[in-house]
């Protein structure tokens, strides 16, 4: 139970152990731990940044999608309007064409009617001349009475 030289040996050993620990064992362990801590912190912040970037991208894409949708709507609206206009125009054109064709047909018919009337008048004139010739025999000269005959024909 008495104090003896073990004391000195123990003190010395302790100091040696502490020195070994301090100089050789502690620094690499603590260094590794601190490096790892830094790495983890970095990783966490990177993850956070990534998450934020993802969120931003999602927001952005949603906005763009919305804009694109609106634009598409606009384009569709414009196209509808244009097609309606085209249709309207085509209808109007067709209407005008119809009117033109009708007018042309009508004037043609009128012209033919006039021609026919003319031809008929001539024939009637000729017929009247022939009838008169037959009635009067040679008394009436076709050439001398041509103006009377054509007047007659015009009156038919």
């Amino acid at each position, binding site marked *: 139970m008495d*104090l003896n030289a*073990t*004391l000195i040996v123990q003190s010395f050993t*302790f100091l040696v*152990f502490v020195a070994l620990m*301090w100089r050789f064992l*502690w620094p690499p*362990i603590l260094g590794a*731990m601190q490096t790892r801590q830094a790495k983890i912190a970095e990783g966490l912040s990177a993850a956070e940044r990534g998450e934020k970037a993802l969120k931003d991208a999602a927001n952005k894409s949603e906005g763009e999608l919305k804009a694109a949708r609106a634009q598409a709507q606009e384009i569709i609206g414009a196209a509808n309007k244009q097609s309606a206009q085209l249709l309207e125009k085509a209808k109007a054109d067709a209407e005008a064409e119809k009117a033109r064709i009708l007018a042309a047909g009508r004037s043609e018919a009128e012209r033919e009617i006039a021609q026919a009337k003319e031809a008929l008048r001539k024939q009637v004139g000729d017929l009247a001349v022939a009838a008169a010739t037959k009635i009067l025999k040679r008394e009436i000269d076709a050439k001398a009475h041509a103006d009377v005959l054509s007047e007659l024909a015009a009156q038919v």
Partner: protein
Amino acid sequence: MAAAEGQEDSGSYVLHHLTNLKLNLQTMKIDPQAHGFWVINLDSVFFAILLGVVFLLFFARVARKANAGVPTGVENFVEMCVEFVQGRVHDIYPNANSLVAPLGLTVGMWVLLMNFMDILPIDWLPWVAEHKLGLPNLRVVPSTDINVTFGLSLSVFVLIYIFNFAYKGPIGLAKEFLTHPFFVKSGPLVVLNVLLMPVNVVLRLVEDIAKPVSLALRLFGNLFAGELIFVLIAVFGSNAFSHGIGGFVGFGIFGALIQFLWAGFHLLVIPLQAFVFMVLTIVYLSAAATSHSEEH
């Protein structure tokens, strides 16, 4: 477990267990009766160094492959210890220098391992030593040797003074010695300081000497008492084979049960004492590094 010792009377059995394997340095002979200062307790020194080396090698193995990757098994344990000590140091002594935490870890782990030798059944290693190696005595728990605990605390004491000198300088330390805690700053009573200075010095000396003494005696007392009770329970159990079946049940089985319960209780004391030793070491060193005048 004490059956082998059953023939001896209990007094000599207890004494046998409390005697170190002593080497007389003057005659260089192993002598259980040796006394005086120039004696070495070979068993304490052997087990203390053995445990210290085991602990350092264990840490060295981890330190050699320490990397910032994912830690595994043993690395986790070591890093947990390191982090634990680092945390305590940081709480107690925020701007500690780089020595304090490794010192705390070393002292804490070493005391813990030395204390844990107490859990080994008390007769196993002494029996081997006596019957196989021919050694008269063997105490396997270094921290039940007052020389070991004082050895640790004296080193701490020396470090406290090194810290005192390093952080305050001789003048700052002298000033602290002379003017703390009693000091008249101004007024007509300043002359009283002449009387207060010796009081301060005495108080400071008591305070400083109390540190290593309490540190060493606390550890020694707890562990020594624990070991003594293990020995006494073993004496109790040693009657197991001499009183028939009743003695076997009463002394043997009951004694084993008590031994078991005491070991269970001691499992709490062992880490607690190691922790207390470590924390107080850190506290003393931090107190040595901060000057009292800053606190006022």
